[in-house]
């Protein structure tokens, strides 16, 4: 055992390898974090381009740009790419960069698996995107792929979709196991569980959610595969199966998945608000307990996505009450952020702007979620643009704003240069205006009665759809500015200090900027 440790010790002083092999063979958590982040950025732009196609088609009533068949492929791929390619890998990238540095560990616990979990992802998305060029087109049944539309009635490319989802799932599970093992075993002496930075806590909980539900998703797509190719009838009523069973399985995965995409955001925003308010987080332990409660409740609310499938009365009432209960811990989090800002000493650098916008707009998304929990009202909201507005409010100015905030906040630590503050603020305001102009009118469109996943619509929805499309183009094209800002920062700019932000606390700020290739080879001293 000691021989192994000594051998490993000899490797410590080498820097990154040269050329492409640095990235292909890397087991360094910072390199892998960078890979994940760039990959998710690429997927964000591809998924965003699809959103532009959707909004261009919906700019006016009538079919103008694409056919309904292709429109359905766009909405399906947009959802899948943004969720599995954009948001989730971005959070894994942030976890890779930050978790070891925050807990004073030299690297992730399972570095080779870390490499594997990243490098299978590009193949998954290559397969998924290549389905666009297959006969019969790409998957066209929505990102929720309800059977039997996704089985008996699916295009042949569905098999590739299933394979691709399997690979994404394997990648997520490996990433999650790595995070859990790292946090449980590699904390520097003195970093107790209840002293861990909230981002680490949020990721520990997220990782357990991933391990719990990704196999359920794998089960769902495997049952689809069996139905399509091997003559089973899990979801085929004509063969004795049950199409509603699919929805139960899917949403048992799907609802925790929603929290997988928001819990790390809670962690990020807590750090940023604390830093720029120059004041200790109001209630650390209640924040941890709130996240735990949200995670546990996420397993007993799945059927609120299915209020119209004909559930028995008792089930409707149970899922309504359970869903509303989630508002309590979520409220605790929002109140904590506000209380942290209260009587602080606040400045509004770009990360703080994104974090403040996160709190306001995520709360709006949360409140519309509360409205959706009311079953009789949900009969009117369900599958309309009101739902589209709701989940985009929690995912775009929620999850994605938190990722952007994190990039601005930690990029000086990653590459040693400050980003351009003026451009950063411009990016924020363009995104903020764009997001609201896009998604706020969708509340109106939905309440007025426009169903989602419609390539064309009746005339009374025309005005606000046009406004929404204009906002979407503004938001979409603003992200090219984001790409420019990131590239500019990577290439050069004002040198950052190790501390970077006046009010920042945490082990990652105790190392130089840019962070050395290997940090905390010997554990730091914690007071």
């Amino acid at each position: 055992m000691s021989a192994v440790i000594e051998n490993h010790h000899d490797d410590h002083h080498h820097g990154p390898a040269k050329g492409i092999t640095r990235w292909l063979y890397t087991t360094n958590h910072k390199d892998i974090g960078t890979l994940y982040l760039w990959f998710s950025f690429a997927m964000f732009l591809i998924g965003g381009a699809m959103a532009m196609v959707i909004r261009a088609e919906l700019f006016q009533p009538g079919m103008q740009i694409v056919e309904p068949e292709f429109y359905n492929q766009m909405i399906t791929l947009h959802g899948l790419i943004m969720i599995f390619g954009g948001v989730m890998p971005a959070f894994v990238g942030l976890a890779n960069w930050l978790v070891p540095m925050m807990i004073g560990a030299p690297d992730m616990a399972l570095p080779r698996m870390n490499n594997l979990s990243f490098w299978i992802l590009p193949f998954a998305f290559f397969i998924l995107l290549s389905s666009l060029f297959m006969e019969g087109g790409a998957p066209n049944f929505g990102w929720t792929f309800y059977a039997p539309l996704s089985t008996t009635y699916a295009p042949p490319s569905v098999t590739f979709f299933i394979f691709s989802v399997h690979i994404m799932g394997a990648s997520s599970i490996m990433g999650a196991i790595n995070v859990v093992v790292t946090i449980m075993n590699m904390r520097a002496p003195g970093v107790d569980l209840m002293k861990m930075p909230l981002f680490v806590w949020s990721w520990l909980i997220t990782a357990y959610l991933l391990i719990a539900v990704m196999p359920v998703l794998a089960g769902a797509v495997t049952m689809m595969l069996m139905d399509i190719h091997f003559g089973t009838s899990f979801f085929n009523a004509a063969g004795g199966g049950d199409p509603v069973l699919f929805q139960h399985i899917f949403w048992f995965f799907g609802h925790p998945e929603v929290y997988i995409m928001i819990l790390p955001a809670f962690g990020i925003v807590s750090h940023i608000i604390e830093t720029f308010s120059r004041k200790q987080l109001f209630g650390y332990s209640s924040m941890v307990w709130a996240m735990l409660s949200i995670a546990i409740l996420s397993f007993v609310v799945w059927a609120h996505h299915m209020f119209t499938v004909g559930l028995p009365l008792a089930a409707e009432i149970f899922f309504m009450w359970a869903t509303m209960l989630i508002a309590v811990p979520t409220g605790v989090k929002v109140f904590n952020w506000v209380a942290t800002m209260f009587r602080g000493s606040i400045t509004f650098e770009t990360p703080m702007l994104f974090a403040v916008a996160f709190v306001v707009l995520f709360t709006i998304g949360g409140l519309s979620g509360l409205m959706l929990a009311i079953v009789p009202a949900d009969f009117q909201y369900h599958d309309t643009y009101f739902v589209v507005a709701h989940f985009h409010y929690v995912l775009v100015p929620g999850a994605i704003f938190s990722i952007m905030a994190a990039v601005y906040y930690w990029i000086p630590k990653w590459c040693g240069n400050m980003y351009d503050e003026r451009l950063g603020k411009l990016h924020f305001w363009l995104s903020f205006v764009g997001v609201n102009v896009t998604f706020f009118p969708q509340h109106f469109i939905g309440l007025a009665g426009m169903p989602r996943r419609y390539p064309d619509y009746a005339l009374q929805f025309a005005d606000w759809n046009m406004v929404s499309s204009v906002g979407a183009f503004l938001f979409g094209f603003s992200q090219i500015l984001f790409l420019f800002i990131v590239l500019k920062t990577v290439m050069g700019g004002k040198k950052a200090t190790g501390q970077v932000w006046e009010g920042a606390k945490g082990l990652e700020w105790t190392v130089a900027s840019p962070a050395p290739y290997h940090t905390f080879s010997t554990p730091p001293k914690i007071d």
Partner: protein
Amino acid sequence: MFFRLLKNSKRNVLLPLIFLCASPMISADWFALNMTRGITDISNEVFELHMLIFWICVAIGAVVFSVMFYSMWAHTKEKNPVPATFHENHKLEIAWTIIPFLILIAMAVPASKTLVKIYDDEAGDINIQVTGYQWKWQYRYLEDEVSFFSNLSTDLDEIYNLVPKGENYLQEVDEMVVIPAGKKVRFLITANDVIHSWWMPAFAIKQDAIPGFVNTAWTVVDEPGIYRGKCTELCGKNHGFMPIVVKVVEQDEYDDWVYGKRQEAIKLAELTTKEWTTAELMERGEGIYEVNCVACHQTAGQGIAGIFPALAGSDIALNNKDRHIEILMEGVQGAAMNSFDYLSEVELAAVITYTRQAWGNAENGDGEIVVPKDIVDYKEPKI
């Protein structure tokens, strides 16, 4: 291949652009901001619930955001250079856990009460079986023995911006569901192929139509009128093109309507025994093709490569009359092609003849036609 403007040289490119620019003027509905109240007791209750929770959310938002915005204004680094150091306050934390909890109960109780009313499951005065098909609705009146399909009646040229869009663009059908005012009508909702969802906002009914299951919903409408709804579960490419229109009429008018529908059915039955010419079948068949087949197999029978097979030049349509009939009667296992045995013998014979004759199929194949008697024979039990 995806971009219509690039690929479709047959249609004028300029014309759609003109209507594209003109359409904002024909629609000005900036005030379509909120849910409509609907016209039944239940839909009114749902509307009240919606407004209640909406205002509660607005109030919560107002309180939270005003504290936050005040802090952003008053507690900047300039105005407050030395931050306070307070953190954790058990009284405050208990308060902001308990108060939201009580608010939630105040919302959930009336919601549960309304839900119990909606779930009243007694039989109606009139029971209508609603079946979702890709992409149309079938209505069967269980007591009155009336049955028909309801299809989108908006012209394709309106959808492709070749002519101005009408007032009820995408919200009009060839045959409305007619129900009498003041009677309890129960809908038994199911589907034939994929999952659809039957939504009538004015009645606050939205129930998924699921193959192999029957969901129920009921309503009592007092006010005669025409009410429009839509399919709300993604069901394939024409999901956006299968609207629902319900016409509520007084009882007398309803009885007349039922009588008229029955007479129609009798006339249709008589047609089965009539001698048919190819031209007559073709004429009738084209209309049936436009309604039932064109979405997948396309106007010129060319299909869509990889998903929906072409009929023009297909071996079955050219040379295999028996298999042709069989496919329409039984569907194709494991494919999107369903059984069309719900069409009448005349309709089936006409549409099969049409697809065997049109697009040069008659010249390239055996040119055989199918008459209603062939379908009747097919339906006879085989020994």
